[in-house]
C-alpha cells in the first residue's frame, strides 16, 4: 500500500515536471510566434513624437511615414527588443525631439528647474509681502482694541452683512 502510494506520488511528480516543461516550451514558442498587437505598438508609439510633424504623438499621427514607423516598432518588438531599446533607437536616428520630454541632461535640465524655482521665488515674495502687510496691524492692536478682530460670530451678523451688501451694491 505504502509502495503504491509512493508510486503515485512519483508519477504525479513526473507528470507535473512534464507539464511544467511543456508549458515552458509552449510559452517560448508562442512568444516567437505571435506578432505584437496594435496595443503593444501604440503603448510605445504614444511615448514618441512624430519625427516629421509638429507636436503629434506617433500613435495618432495619420501620415504614411508614421504608419511605417509604427510598423518598425512592431518589427522591433517582434525581434524581442525592449521598450527602452526601441526608444533609444528612435532617439539615435531622429534626435531627442522624438521624446515627449527632453532627456534630463545638460542644457535640458533648465526645462525642469526653472519653473519650480520661479514659483518658489513667487511664493517667497508673496509670503514676505504678507508679513510686511500684517505687521503694522500687530502694532496697532497693541495700542488699542480693534473692532473687526472680533470674528463675526452669529448668523445675524451674516444676514446683516448680506443685506448691507445688497443695499450698498454699487
Amino acid at each position: 500500500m505504502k509502495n503504491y502510494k509512493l508510486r503515485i506520488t512519483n508519477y504525479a511528480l513526473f507528470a507535473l515536471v512534464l507539464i511544467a516543461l511543456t508549458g515552458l516550451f509552449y510559452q517560448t514558442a508562442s512568444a516567437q510566434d505571435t506578432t505584437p498587437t496594435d496595443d503593444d505598438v501604440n503603448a510605445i508609439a504614444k511615448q514618441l513624437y512624430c519625427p516629421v510633424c509638429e507636436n503629434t504623438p506617433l500613435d495618432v499621427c495619420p501620415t504614411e511615414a508614421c504608419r511605417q514607423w509604427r510598423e518598425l516598432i512592431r518589427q522591433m518588438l517582434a525581434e524581442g527588443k525592449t521598450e527602452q531599446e526601441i526608444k533609444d533607437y528612435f532617439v539615435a536616428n531622429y534626435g531627442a525631439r522624438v521624446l515627449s520630454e527632453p532627456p534630463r541632461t545638460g542644457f535640458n535640465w533648465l526645462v525642469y528647474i526653472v519653473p519650480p524655482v520661479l514659483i518658489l521665488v513667487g511664493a517667497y515674495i508673496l509670503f514676505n509681502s504678507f508679513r510686511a502687510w500684517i505687521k503694522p496691524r500687530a502694532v496697532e492692536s497693541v495700542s488699542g482694541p480693534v473692532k473687526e478682530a472680533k470674528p463675526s460670530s452669529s448668523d445675524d451678523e451674516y444676514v446683516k452683512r448680506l443685506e448691507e451688501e445688497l443695499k450698498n451694491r454699487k
Partner: protein
Amino acid sequence: MLPEFGYGVLLVSFIVTVYSGFAAWYGVQNKSASLVESARRAQLLTFPLLTIAAGVLIYLLVNDHYEVSFVYEVTSRSMPTYLKVTAWWGGQAGSLLFWAWLLAMFTSAVTIRKWDRDLEFLPWVIVVSAITLAFFIGMVVFYENPFTRFWDVGGEVVPSFFAPSATATVFTPQDGQGLNPLLRHPGMVIHPPMLYLGFVSFVIPYAFAMAALITGRTDDRWIRITRRWTLWAWLFLSMGLVLGGRWAYDVLGWGGYWGWDPVEIAAFMPWLTGTAFLHSVMIQEKRGLLKHWNMILIILTYALVVFGTFLTRSGVLSSVHAFANSPIGPLFMGFVSLTLIASVALLIKRWPELKSETEMKSMLSREALFLLNNLLFIGILIVCFWGVISPLASELFTGTKITVGPPYYERATGPLFAGLLFLMAIAPLSAWGHSTVQTLGRVLWKSALAASILTVVLVFTYTKNIYALIGFFLISFVLFATVHEFWRGANARMKTQNENFFAALGRLMGRNRRRYGGYIIHISMALMAIGILGIEIFQMETQGTVASGESLELSEYRVEYRELASWDDFGAGVNYTRSVVDIYENGIFIGQLFPRIDYYYDSQQNMTIPGQHATLKDDLYILLVDWQPTSNEGATFKVYVNPLVNWMWIGSLTFLFGLMFAAWPDKDPADEPVRRKVSAGDRQTSAAD
C-alpha cells in the same frame, strides 16, 4: 480693379489710424479739445474703413477670384459659400486683417461711450488703441497683403501687388487650393473669431490702465470702467478655448481635446493672466489694495495677447529659423518688447502713487486667498511659458530640437490646478479684511464633511487611484461649498424678508449678479474638472484589425464591425470611406456608429471623423484607422473609452450661462457714481464684493 480698391482702403485706414493716435497725443499736449475730438472721430472712422476692405476681400473670396493669391490659397470652387466667407480667417494675411477689423470694432465702440466724467482718459485710450491698431493694419498693408495677385511675367508666375513689369499680365489659376479640410469644421469656423474677440477685447482694459498711469488718475476708476469689457473679453477667450477643444475632439482624431500643443498654450496664457486679473481687481475695488499688481497683470495679459498672435502667426514654433525668414516674426517681437518696456517704465514712474489704501489684515482674509490664487495662476503661466520657450531656446543655443510634451505640463500643473480647486472652495466663503480658522471652519465644515463622505463612497464604488480621489474630493468640496453658499444666502433672506425660497434666491442673485455669476462659474469649473480628471486618469484605448462580424472589446463595450463603403462626392471634391459598427454594452445592443475618413482631393488631406456614443458616464469614441479594399478582409479601428468626459462640455455650457449672468449689461455700471467714500472701518466689515 477690386484688389486695388481694397488695398487703397486699407492704406487709408492705416493713415487714419496713425492720424488719430497722433492727433490725440498732440491734442492733449496742447490742451486742444477740438484736436482730441478729431482724433476720436478718426478712430471711429477706422471701423467702417476696415469693414469696406474686409467686404472687398470677402467678395473676392466668394466669387472665385483666384488671381488673388490669398483667395487661391484658402478657397476652391467646390467649397460652399459660407466656407468661402469664413476662409477669411483661414490664412495668414486674412486673419491679420480680421484681427485688425475686430480691434477697430472694439476701439470704435469704446470711443462712442459717454466720457463726461473720464474725459482725461479719452485721448490716451485713443493713443494706446491706435498704436495697437496701426501695428496690425501696418502688418497687413506692408507685409501680409491679402490683395496680392499673381502675375505672368514671361511665362513665370510671380505673386505681387503691383505689376512687376510693364508687360506683365494678371494670371488667374483655374481653381484654388482650397481651405485645409481640418478648418472646415463648424467648430473651427467659430473658434478663431471667439479667440480673436477675446484677444482684442483685452486691449481695451489695457488701454485704460495705460491712460490711468499716464494721467496719474490711479484710483480704481479705470477698473470700474473696464469691468464689463474684461468680463466679455474673458468670456470670448474662454469660449474660444473650449470650442477649440471641442473641435480637436471631433476632428483631429486622437481621442482628446487638449494636447498641450504650443498653439493651444499661446491662447491659454493670456487666459491665465486674465483670470488672475479678474480676481485681483476685486481686491482693489473692495479694499484699495494691489494697485501695482493689477497693473502688472493687465500689462502681462496684453503682452501675452500679442505674443500669442506672434507664436501662431510667425512660424517660430516649427523652427526658430523660420521666424527670421519672414518679416512678421521680428516685427511682432519688436512690438511686444517695445510695448512691454514702455508699460513697465510708466508703471515704475507711477509706482509711489499706487500705494495701497489699507493693509492686509489676515492670511485667511479673502484678499489674501485671492493673492494665493494669483500665485497659482502665475505659476501655471510660468510652466506654460517655459514649456513653449525652452524648445526654442534649445534649438537656438544648442542646435538640438527638443519636444516638451504633455508629461511635463501634466506633472507641473497638476498640483497647481488642485490648489486652485481648493481655493475655489474656501475663498468665496472667507470675509474681506478678516477671517480666522474658526470663522472659516464654521461655514465650511459641512461641505468638507460631505465631500469626505462622497470620497469614501467613491473608494468603494469607483476607484482607488489616489490622484483621482484627491481630485474628486476637491471637486465635490467646491460643489458643496458653493451650493451651500447659495442656500445660505437665500435662507437668510427668507428669514428677514419673508420671501419664499425661490423669490429669495432670485432676488439674491439678481442683486449681485457678478458675485453669483462668479459662483456659477466656479460650479462650472468643478464640472469641467470632472471631465478632465476622467479623461486624464481613466482613459482606455485599444486598437485592432477585424473582419466583418468580428469585434473589439474594451471595458464593458463590444464593437462589432459590420461593413464599409467608399464613394466619391465629386461636387465637394471629397472621397468618403464610411464604416458601420454595432456597439454593445454588457452584451446589450445599444446602437450603430459610423466612423469615417474623408479624403479631400484638392488639398490631398485626410480627415478622421470618429463615431461617438456619449453618455454622462463616458464616451465611446471609435476611429477608423485603416481598411482593406474588400471589407471582408477587415478594417482597423481604434477604440477609446473616455470616462466622464462629457462633464467637460456640460461644464462649458454652465460656464457660458454663469458668465452671461454676470456680464449681461444692465444699466451701464460705469455710469453709476464713483466709489462712495467709505471709511476704512466700513470696508473691512463688508464680507463680499
